[in-house]
Structures are given as C-alpha cells and as structure tokens.
C-alpha cells in the first residue's frame, strides 16, 4: 500500500487528507493549528489521521504541503531582521517606495507608513554600476564593500542579507561577486540576491521582493527542516516532503527553503488546485472558484483546467514580484462585520472582521457585532436548532440581537437587515468574480462556479444567480479542499530571463536556442530532487506587450508549437488576447519582455473513490426539517446529510446539505445533483 498525505496549515485549523493511491480511499482530519511552531500541529494531525484510519505512518511515501508559514511571518511582522546592500545612491529605494500614498485626494493626511522590512539602519550602498544594457560602468569596489559589510555584521542585528543592485536584472555579475564577498563575512546568514530571486526590471519591486524573500527565509527554512526531520523520524528516511508554491506547482522542501517568497500564496493555490482536481474529473474545465473563509474571499478564473498565473503576489500591504495563481481577494468573509455609519445611513459590510476571537455573535465567544455569519443564522441558512457535523454550537438569539442593531440603525426590520447584509457580502464577491471574468473579457455564463472554504457553500447558489454561471459546484470536503489540492499537484520549477527584445528583430532559431538553455536550467532543479528527466514535462512562457505599454500578457506554449510557428506563435497569440481584453490590436511593435521554461514532474494517477452510501434513498439521507428566509419569504426546507448522499441523488431546494465543516444552501427553484466524483451540482430547476 502506498499513501500520500495532503496537509494544509491555515490560520485556525490544520487540515489533513490521506489518500490511498491504489484505491482512491480517503481519510480527513482537522486539528487546531499551532502558530508558534506549525510543525507541531502537522505532527498532531498525522498522529490523529493515522490513528483514526489505522494506516501505518511508514506507508505514507509522500507528504504534500500547503502552508501559511511565510504568509504569517509577513502578516504578523515576525520575519527576520534583514540587512540590505544596494547600489550606492539607491539606499532609500524602499523608503521612497515609488512615492505612492494610498487613498484619494487628501489620502496623505492619514497615511501611516509601515516600517520597512529591511530597515535603513541596516542598509548600505555598494560602489558599483551596471548600465541599462548590462555593461559594467563602474566595477564593484570590493575593499570598500568588505569594510562596510564588516561594520554591518558587527551590529549583530542582521539575520538575513539581501543584495539588490541597479540593472542587475540584465546582468547579475556584480551582485554575484558581492554575494561571494558577503558570504565570507556573513558565514551563517542566508543571502538572497535579486538577480536570482526575481531577475525583472523595476528597482523598487525587485528590491522589495528580494527583501521579502530574506524576511521569511530563516523562519521557513527552520520550519521545513524541523518538519522534514520529524517526518523522517516517524515515517522513515525516504519520505518525500514537497511544498505547494503560490503558482500552484509543488516545490521540493529544499527549493522552497531557498526562495520562500514563492510560497506566500501557498494556501489559496491549494484551494484552486483542489477545485481543478474535482471539477476537471467531472468534466468542467472552465470554472470560477470562490473560496470564502472567515475574513476574506479568494476568487479565480480557471480556463482549460489551468489556473492563470500572475507575476505578482500581494499579502496585506506587501506586494512582490513573485508568480502566484491569479487569485483576487475581497474583504468579505463569514466573520465580516456589518455596520451603519451614522450620517449616511448606508449599510457597510467589512472589511473589518470579527476573526476567530471574539468571533461572530452566534458562537458566544464574546463577539457582539453582527457578522455575515450571524445574518446566515438569522435567515436560517446556518441552522441553530440542528447540530450538523460542526462541533461549534450556534446561538440564534445572539445573532438576532446583533443583527437587530443594524436593522434599528437603518430603520428596517430584522429579516430585511439580515438579507441586506448577505446581499452586500454577495455583491462584494460578485464584484471580485466580475473582475476575473467580465473585466478580462470572459463571459461568466461560459463557466461553472465552484464554492468552497468554510462559508463558500452557503453563498454559492446565490452567487450562481448573480453571475449566471451554472452549474454551481460544491466539491466534496469543501472545508478541506486545500489539502486535496496539496495532495494532487506536481513538483515544478522554472527558469526565466529578462529578454527585452522586439519580436521583429528575433529569428526563430535564436528564440529556440534561448529557450532550450532555460529548459536545461529548469530541469536541473528537478534532477537535484531525484526526478529523472524521463518524468519531466516541459512547457514555455513568454511575456509580451506592445512596446511602450506598461501591461503585459503571458503566452503559454509547447516545444511542438514553437517548432511549427516560431516567433509568429507569440505575436499571434498576444494579438488575439489583447483584442479580447481591450477590443483592439496593433499589427507590429511586439516587445518580448521575459521568457521562461517550466519543468513539471508527470502526474501520478489516483484511483476513484466510492461516493456516499449506495442504495440509500433521499428520504434516508434526511436529518431534519427546518425553514429559511429568502427574498422576503419564509420557506420550509429539509436538511440532508452529505456523507450519505450517493451518486445520482437529487436534492431540490429549499434544502440544506450539511457535512463536517461546511453547509450548502440550495435555494428555492434550484436543484442539487450528486455527480460521480461526489460533487454537488446546483442548477436552476427544470434546466439541463
């Protein structure tokens, strides 16, 4: 028997999913996260899941892991003290931060700048200069650098060192040399250089990205090595640990410890991967994902079962140039607080969240302000009278009291206020869904909508009504979908270079030769992790724009396509996408900014699993009768147990489908069908 384990470490819970690679049989577990050292929670979870399933830990050969360790280091400001070496004259690059003040006219009045991740007192300038063409204008002053680094080292403050020189994206030689010198002085400190981490134009973004890499590096490295040691100890020395990157690929533990800036969106990427896993097997390759958690909702557009990857990652105020699945986040989640400003009497929902503490009013943990969750309780979508799979008790009176405060402030009745809160939250998610679809030139009606995360299945049907994207899909285990994603993705690495070449000046031969060189570099990383070349899948990317534009589009292609069409492949695809996005195209002036080779380990199949309890009628799956409020009316509804629902059963709305950590609402006029992979497919009644 061979098992693989998916582990998703979130802010509140650590989710685990154990898959038998031979039978497809799965086991899940949920244990509290342990933020002080996440590996403890992971090991607790492994103990629990093995105990409950009777699986011997030694049979687990691969552990695939999505983690917020890097993200949390940024969010909580607990990263390393970072020292920074810039080109002399550019020490203030982060301090000036492109001169941007957020907010509208007068926004500067209240703008409070966050402390720099590499403080100015730990920043030094190196005397060197590279031209924009990559020629050395001034050689690195090695003696001066050595002296300055020695002084910096003597402060005893630097826990991670960053080197970022002007124009190093085009020639990193001076950075490399500076790094060698630094390594002689900072013998036990990790050093990140910008030409390795992100060889892309724009000094502020490149410096910030490399600094963030340094900032999270010690914490991630120690976490990964602790976890690997503990796994080896429990499961034997052959256990292969991989970590999910922001772009949806898996990286070996070794690779992720070196460039942790690529893991900041590990969590959302896991959700997207999990959604793709279930939807593609059900025949839905074009989907909109909606992952609604406690404080925010992540949405993404997936075409041909492939997530779009954006070359930017945003975590709170930190914005870095690292590839991540193109997920848009809005500040509307189950814990978002509703309020009414006194003067305008408008109903506002979020972005403030009640979080886990004090939490929504209904959980009686001290929260009194009305949240989206409380509105769901008041409306009956989250039943208070029936204990579903979840272990938390729900107090409807507390929710009513909280929502009543909003109703009074607006001068409307309780139910109207509760529906208002839900509608505003839905509208906010709808806005994000439009951003990834309509505003990118896609019609949501050509997509299915996937709702997951703790709160997603509560709102998914309503979002289907707003977007007209059908069916609405609720995958199995919507609350642990990230762990599914972790367990079902592949190891991947990439090599890239800044190209800045006009397509018109480029021959097919030159482009092919340059890409082949990158291919070798990308494959090397997989070879280092003992994945033989025969198991590599290679693909390519190029970023293009019309010379002069700030915007760029990434074109994906294969070697075969390149051989057939050459450079024209890139310009043709770019024109087509540009036209879809902006309704016009130009005939020439294509500039190729970056080229990239991606090496991916081939996927290993997992067998299909058994769905529900075969032979059980719908009536037998029923838990209770209840009622909920929708569009101004009360409806009698039935509550079903999802674990019993087998393939082919149809649940007509108004209904609620409960499971361990999630609740699905089926609205009046809609029907949910269980498909062969276990998804609930919600469609308008009478449609096909």
């Amino acid at each position: 028997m061979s098992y693989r384990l998916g582990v998703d470490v979130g802010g509140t819970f650590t989710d685990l999913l154990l898959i038998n690679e031979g039978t497809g049989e799965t086991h899940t577990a949920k244990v509290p996260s342990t933020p002080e050292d996440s590996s403890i929670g992971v090991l607790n979870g492994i103990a629990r899941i093995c105990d409950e399933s009777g699986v011997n830990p030694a049979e687990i050969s691969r552990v695939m892991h999505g983690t917020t360790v890097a993200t949390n280091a940024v969010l909580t400001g607990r990263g390393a003290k970072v020292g920074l070496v810039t080109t002399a004259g550019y020490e203030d690059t982060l301090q000036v931060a492109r001169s941007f003040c957020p907010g509208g006219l007068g926004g500067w009045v209240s703008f409070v700048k966050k402390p720099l991740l590499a403080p100015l007192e730990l920043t030094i300038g190196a005397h060197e200069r590279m031209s924009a063409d990559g020629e050395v204008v001034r050689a690195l002053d090695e003696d001066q650098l050595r002296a300055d680094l020695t002084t910096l080292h003597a402060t005893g403050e630097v826990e991670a060192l960053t080197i970022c020189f002007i124009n190093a994206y085009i020639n990193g030689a001076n950075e490399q040399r500076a790094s060698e010198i630094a390594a002689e002085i900072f013998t036990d400190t990790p050093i990140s250089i910008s030409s390795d981490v992100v060889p892309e134009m724009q000094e502020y973004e490149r410096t910030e990205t490399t600094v963030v890499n340094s900032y999270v590096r010690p914490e991630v490295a120690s976490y990964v090595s602790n976890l690997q040691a503990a796994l080896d100890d429990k499961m034997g020395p052959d256990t292969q640990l991989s970590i999910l990157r922001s772009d949806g690929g898996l990286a070996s533990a070794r690779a992720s410890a070196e460039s942790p800036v690529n893991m900041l969106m590990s969590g959302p990427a896991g959700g997207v991967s999990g959604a793709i896993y279930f939807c593609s097997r059900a025949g839905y390759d074009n989907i909109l994902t909606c992952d609604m958690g406690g404080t925010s909702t992540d949405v993404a557009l997936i075409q041909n079962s492939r997530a779009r990857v954006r070359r930017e990652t945003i975590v709170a105020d930190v914005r870095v140039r690292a590839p991540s699945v193109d997920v848009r986040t809005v500040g509307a989640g189950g814990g978002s607080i509703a309020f009414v400003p006194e003067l305008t009497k408008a109903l506002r929902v979020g972005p403030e969240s009640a979080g886990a503490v004090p939490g929504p009013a209904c959980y009686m943990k001290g929260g009194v302000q009305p949240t989206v969750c409380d509105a769901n309780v008041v409306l009956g979508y989250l039943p208070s009278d029936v204990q579903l799979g979840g272990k938390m008790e729900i107090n409807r009176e507390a929710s009513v009291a909280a929502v009543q405060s909003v109703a009074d402030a607006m001068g409307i009745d309780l139910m109207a206020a509760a529906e208002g809160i839900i509608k505003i939250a839905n509208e906010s998610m709808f806005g994000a869904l439009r951003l990834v679809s309509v505003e990118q030139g896609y019609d949501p009606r050509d997509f299915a909508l996937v709702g997951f995360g703790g709160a997603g299945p509560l709102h998914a049907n309503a979002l289907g009504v707003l977007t007209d994207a059908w069916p609405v899909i609720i995958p199995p285990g919507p609350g642990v979908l990230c762990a599914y994603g972790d367990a079902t993705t592949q190891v991947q690495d990439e090599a890239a270079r800044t190209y800045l070449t006009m397509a018109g000046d480029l021959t097919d031969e030159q482009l092919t030769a340059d890409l082949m060189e990158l291919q070798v570099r990308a494959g090397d990383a997989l070879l280092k992790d003992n994945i033989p070349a025969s198991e590599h899948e290679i693909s390519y990317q190029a970023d293009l724009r019309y010379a002069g534009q700030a915007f760029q589009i990434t074109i994906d292609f294969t070697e075969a396509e390149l051989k057939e069409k050459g450079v024209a492949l890139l310009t043709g695809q770019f024109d087509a996408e540009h036209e879809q996005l902006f309704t016009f195209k130009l005939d020439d002036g294509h500039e190729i900014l970056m080229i990239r080779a991606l090496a991916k380990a081939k996927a290993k199949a997992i067998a299909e699993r058994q769905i529900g309890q075969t032979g059980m009628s719908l009536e037998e799956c029923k838990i209770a009768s209840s009622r909920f409020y929708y569009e101004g009316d009360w409806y009698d509804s039935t509550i079903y147990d999802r674990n019993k629902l087998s393939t082919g059963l149809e649940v007509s709305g108004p209904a609620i489908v409960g499971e361990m950590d999630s609740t699905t609402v089926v609205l009046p006029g809609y029907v949910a069908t269980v498909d062969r992979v276990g998804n609930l497919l919600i469609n308008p009644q009478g449609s096909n």
Partner: protein
Amino acid sequence: MSARLLETNHDPLKRIDVDGVTVDIIENALRNAREEMDAVLFRTAMSPGIREQGDCFPMIANKEGKMVVGQFGSFIGPFLEAYDEEIEEGDIILTNDPYMCNAAVSHLPDWVVLVPIFKDGRHIAWSAMFGHMSDNGGMVPGSIPIQATTIFQEGIRIPPTKLYKKGVLQADLLELILHNVRTPQWNRFDLNALVAACNTAAKRCVELAIRFGDDVLFSTMDIMLQRNYEAMKHIIGMFIPEEPREFEDYICDDGMGMGPYKIKCTMWREGEKAIFDFAGTDPQAQSSVNFFLNEDMFKMFFGSFTINVVDPQIVFNDGFYDLVDVRIPQGTLLKPNYPAALSGRTHALGRIFDVLGALLGMGAPEMMLNAAGFSDSPHLFFSGYDSREGKGNEWFQLFQIGFGGVPGRPVGDGPDGHSLWPGFTNVPNEFIESYFPLRIERYETIPDSGGAGLHRGGNGLSVAYRFLCDGDIGIHDDRWLTYPWGVLGGETGLRSTKKLVRADGSEESLPAKVEGIKVKTGDVLYFNTWGGGGWGDPFARDPELVRQDVARRLVSVEGAKRYGVVMSADKTVDQAATEVLRAQLIAARGDNSALFNFGGDLEDIRGRCEAETHLPAPVKPTFVGAK
C-alpha cells in the same frame, strides 16, 4: 446656449423609491466601474506619464452631469452650458481648452473625453476621463512653455469636438490634431485608452440599468448625491466657523522675473453655506503660471479633504455643491482673462491645497492642521535626438514628475519623497534608463530637508541625472524662495534647488522655472525637491526617535541639534548634553506661540534671496495685458 441631447425614446426617467440595500449595491458597482476605468487606461496607455505615473482622472456622472463617482468633480455642467450643439448616441466628445469649458480642464495638455451613455434610445448618464498627454505642440517639447504669454503659444487648442459621430471615428480630425503634436504615437494610444476606459464605464452603467431597471439606476444616482449633501452639511456645520478666517500663501515666481504671487482666501459660514472668497489674490501673471480654477473643482477639493472623517467608504461625489459658494475675482492668478497662458498651472494648483489645509486646520490645529506639504508637481523635461551608437538619432522626449516631503501631520511624521497626489507614482529608474539616454546616479532623500518638529516633515528627494547625449532640458518647480511652512512650533522645510554640474566640473545653480537649457553628454543635473514643514515643538520630540533618524541617515548629527539632541561618538544620544542644549535653545527662542512659521516675512526672504539661492530675487508682480 447649451447642448441638446437627442433621444429616440422620449419616456422620461422616473424618480422612484429605492431601498437602502439596493442603493448600497449600486454604489459598490459604480465604484468598481470607476476603478475599472483606471485599470483599462493604465494597461492600454503608452506614455510613461499616464501608465507609470497615473496622471489621469475618471468620472461617472448622472444624466444632468453631476459626478456620482470620480475624483476631481464634474466638468460636464459647465461644458454643457458652453457647447451649443446636438449630442446623440455614439458621439464621443474631445476637448482640451479651458476657455471653452469654464476651466473643466485647466491646461491644454489635459485632454478630456466625454461619452454620453444611452440605453434603449434614452440618455441615462455620462462617463468622462481626462489624461495628461505627453505633448500638445507649441513652443517647447512637453507643451508647458514657461515663457508663453498667451495660450496660442501652448499648442493646439481643441474646442469641444466630436471625435466620434454616431459611433464613427472622425479620422481626418484626429489626424489633424495628432499632426500638431511631437508625440503622435503616444497621444494616439493614450487617447484610444481614454476612449476605451469611458466606453467600459458606459457598458457597466447600461448593465446596471438592465439588472436593476433604468429608473432605479437614475434614482439611485440622486440618492447617492443626496448622501453626500447630508454628510457635507454636517461637516460644514462642524468645521466652518461663522467668523471669517483667512490665509495667504504664494507661488514664488512666474519664470519671467516677477514674484511671488499671492493667493489669498477667506472662509466663513452663513447658515448652512460655506463661502470661500479669493479676494486679495494677486492679478494674473504675464507667463503661463496662471491657474484657471473652476469653482466646482475647488468645492471638490474642499469636500474630499473633509468627508473621510464621517464615512471613509462613501462614494464621494458632487451632491453637496449647493452648500458651497466659491468666489474668484476675474483677472486674478486664479481666473485670468483670455487669452492668458495657462500651461504652467501646476504650482498654483498645488498651493491651493496648502491654503485649503491651513484654513480648515487652524480652527483645531492639534487635531487637523498639517504643515505645508509637497504642494506641487515639479516637472523635468529632457528632449533631443539620441546620438548614442545604434540609436539612430531617434527623437526622444522625457517628462518626469518629482516628489518631495510630505509635511509633519497630527498623525505623525511626513513620509520622505512621497506624492500628495492620489494614485501618482514615480517612474522606475530602470525603466527610464532603458528607454532614454540618461543614467540616474543617485535617487535619495535629502537629510535634514524635512522641517524639524515633534513630528518631522518628510525629506525632499535628490535625483542626479547624468545625460548620455546632448539635449534640452526644462524645469518647473517652486518653493525655491518661499518656505514650506511649519506649524505649532515646527520649523520650515528646506527649499528646492537645482544644480547643473558640467562634464568639465563647473557648476551652476538653475532657476526653479527655466527652459531651453542645453545639456551635453556627461553633464549631471541635481534635481532637489523640497522637504515638508515640521509639526509641533522639535524640542519635545523623543530623542530616541531623533537617534533613529540619524541612524537612518534621514537627519544628520548636526541636524539633530535642531531638535536640541546631541549625539555621542558611539551613535547614542548624549542625554546630559541634550538636556543642556534643549534648555539653552528653549530660552533663546523666546515666544513660540505663533501658529505658522513662514521662515521670516516676504521682504526679509527677498532680501536674503541672492545670497542664499544664488539666484536674483524676483520683482514685485505687475500686470499689463488683456482685460
């Protein structure tokens, strides 16, 4: 004389009741549509000014032309009054002439695109956007000639004109316009992008009308305007005193030897109404530094400065205009007579914000008064033929905006080298170096340039441009003579300077406003912007914060003494020496109760000018010209 909208569907839009939640939903959707306008523009525009710096402003307005979402307020009302034509579905209007739209835009390089939004033959709303074009023809590259004395020298004037008629591009007209500018390809793309952004907003409005109903959308826009009216009524009652309050500030010179020019404003309240009267402002300038200020635009400045206090999430709009009365005397710097030149209006535009900030803040200085900020948008132009090897003598034209010190504020220190304009960012130096014959050798904040205070003013920036081929430069800056003032005991910030170091090592100080300076390969220009004023008593600042600023090279060891802080050789604070110095300095300064510190009176400043700035003092302005 006014515009006439031709509709094929004559059913009037009806005012109906809309429930509050629906209003909130539509409010959100319109906010998103506005943000989408920006996104479309940034991605498709081509000039660095728009795509990197974000020098552009979107708007969606209701049927009457009142801005429902946007930034700088609606110019549609004044435009409709002045435009004596018929407008129908598919028309798209373009203009850039302040004199033809009651200063809806304030200089010719800002091109406005205006789209009437129709649904089922009925006119339901407007979308509009203006963007700063890289060039508009005229005397100098970049089209902001300092020496212009009439608007005819500032390039092509486009009266309100249909760029599209019933959906058809008037290609001849477009070519005629583009034929008159130095950067036709950039302008063509940027204009294309403005049109695409407005069309996107139009599409979103029509979708909203389909989803909620035409009457609901129509009525909701009114409700959103009413929300602002209510909020601003409260704000005016709270912040504007019945007793008149006045403030005056200056722009230093006009680039032709005269200055400073006074901007004076008196503010008071009569009942519910706030009045801003600019009587006492100096007559219009002989050169292009006039700022033709639209009264409604000033109302918007006032509103957006204050509304955040009550509901930061409100979609800010025009709804409160009736509550504000703005009086600007004809023939002044802020309302010059045609055909005065207008292109260099950025300094007076910026200074308006210092004036407004002072007027609003002085009633409750501890809570609301900021020091003088980076109230300008300094420009650098560099143009010529790229003579470097392999560059084929191609024409290039760079327009850079400078940034400086945000002032000390009640909330804390001012950020260093930042922008006071919403959405503006610097252009990455690596981008400039790869597309222009320049190397930016230093890009750093200027230690001690922020005014000392309990809350330090932000430092200005020093940018060292090394020219890699011969060309012409033009500079537009201010606050080289008058100081960025401090408040509540805070010191003034350091003024701006420009120094040109020739390849042979010789140096010259350049005026703040100058054009046509020939530079040679290897010359270096140091473009130094000014620091923000300080806020509060510098001797009350925690010495530990001063030590930190010194460690960060934002304040020098010598500069720490302005805070009465003495640094030891080991880079810690010498506590004993600090106490002694602070006591001495406090005794020496005497009365410290003045709210504002202007760095001396105007005549003193003028007298010290040549010695301190190496530039001759400007003479008192007089004006002879069209009335």
